[in-house]
């Protein structure tokens, strides 16, 4: 890491990392709260549901981006959390979020147990261009638990736009029952069921990282999930030869 320390001549980042952002974000969209109406609530697994929202002023997003969601009580108390956008951009003014019901969770708990169709919440976004995938480079996606949400937006976009550039998704879940979007996966997806198989390991990634598995120009890797998963998966990628500056990580906390 220290082989190229910055010199006084110029500001040179000292390692290969410096992952560039993918897109410029709209300041206005990021700064303005908008009212969103719950159109549909769909169970994905026993602990995970998808919330379809109507956001009339939605300016569109790129797969991988997230938003901030805010709940306000009658007395003005607010709680806000970040959620990735699950749906592909489609210009419909509707977006989907997929939330894990965190035990004791203030925001996810409300949405899972109290919210119903017709309720309103507020959102601002889309936010952060860093984890966005404009569909321009081959993508290797690694997710666990609700970390698959922004990756599914990429998979859905890949399909809806009929892109033919390579895209592979490796998802990790405890059991098949906990696998979010299970019915939607096709050949692009490898599911790792950790209760029976153990956690994601080098062998799961080997088919994509060897000389034969790489697409032309290599992968842009996107890793998303809990911090524990992000640490583990990103290390596997580095050990497998994926360049550090082509690994983007979104940690849910």
């Amino acid at each position, binding site marked *: *890491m*220290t082989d190229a*320390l*910055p010199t*006084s001549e110029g*500001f040179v*980042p*000292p*390692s*290969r*990392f*410096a*992952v560039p*952002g993918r897109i*410029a*974000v709209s*300041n*206005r969209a*990021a*700064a*303005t*709260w908008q*009212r969103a109406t719950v159109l549909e609530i769909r169970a994905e697994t026993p602990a995970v549901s998808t919330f379809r929202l109507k956001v009339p002023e939605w300016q569109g997003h790129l797969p991988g981006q997230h938003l901030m969601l805010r*709940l*306000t*009580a*009658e*007395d*003005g*108390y*607010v*709680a*806000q959390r*970040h959620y990735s956008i699950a749906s592909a951009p489609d210009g419909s003014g509707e977006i989907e979020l997929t939330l894990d019901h965190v035990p004791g969770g*203030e925001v996810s708990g*409300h949405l899972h147990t*109290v*919210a119903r169709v017709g*309720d*309103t*919440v*507020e959102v*601002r976004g889309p*936010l*952060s*261009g*860093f984890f966005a995938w404009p569909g321009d480079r081959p993508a290797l996606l690694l997710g666990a638990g609700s970390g698959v949400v922004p990756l599914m937006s990429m998979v859905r976009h890949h399909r809806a736009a009929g892109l033919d550039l390579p895209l592979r998704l490796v998802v990790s879940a405890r059991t098949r029952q906990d696998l979010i979007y299970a019915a939607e996966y096709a050949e692009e997806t490898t599911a790792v069921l950790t209760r029976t198989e153990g956690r994601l390991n080098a062998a799961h990634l080997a088919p994509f990282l060897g000389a034969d598995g790489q697409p032309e120009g290599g992968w842009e890797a996107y890793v998303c999930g809990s*911090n524990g998963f*992000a*640490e583990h998966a*990103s290390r596997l*990628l*580095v050990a497998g030869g994926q360049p550090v*500056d082509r*690994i*983007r*990580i*979104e*940690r849910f*906390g």
Partner: protein
Amino acid sequence: MSRYTDFAPTRGFTGRARAADRDPRLPPGQYDARDGWPVLSAEVTPQLTAADWTFRVDGLVTTPHTWTWDEAHALPASEYRGDIHCVTSWSKFGVRFGGVSLDAFLAAAGPLPGATHVVAYSHTGYTTNLPLADVTGGKAWIVWEYEEGPLPAEHGGPARLIVPHLYFWKSAKWVAGLRLLDHDEPGFWEQNGYHHRGDPWAEERYSGD
């Protein structure tokens, strides 16, 4: 602040903590992460040892200088005890970081009168910009201890910058240096849509706030 004016209660939402007994240490829009300490770096955690770590101050200074781990530890010890706030809405109360005040490094390098801003950069290539006034006068530290132990790698160990009065993306992990400039130069998250300054009490989260 965000431009939103019209407040719209969500049916049935009462919230876990009532506004009335909200902890006064909590800035607007934040929640108490208690024992948790979420990790929110966008990059692969570098495998950086103390022997590899160096810290440099250059740019608009009289004496650009690079400190090794041992040289940095020879400076007078200083600590921060207090709260920290992340833009992803968690705050953490009463934490302790041990290291050296940034003032000690800056005093040795000697900022030139024209210096108004700094870019902090890390051993991973991460960058973040700060007004010089936000990192001088006992407001910023280079730290290698968290509570009573070494700073964990995923939280920026072996050493990171902390600027606790601003959102934590300003507190560059795996810090490698500080460059003094006569102008403001947006860093990594600032180029990716975050606010230039990041004051949690003013909710300066995204550019445009």
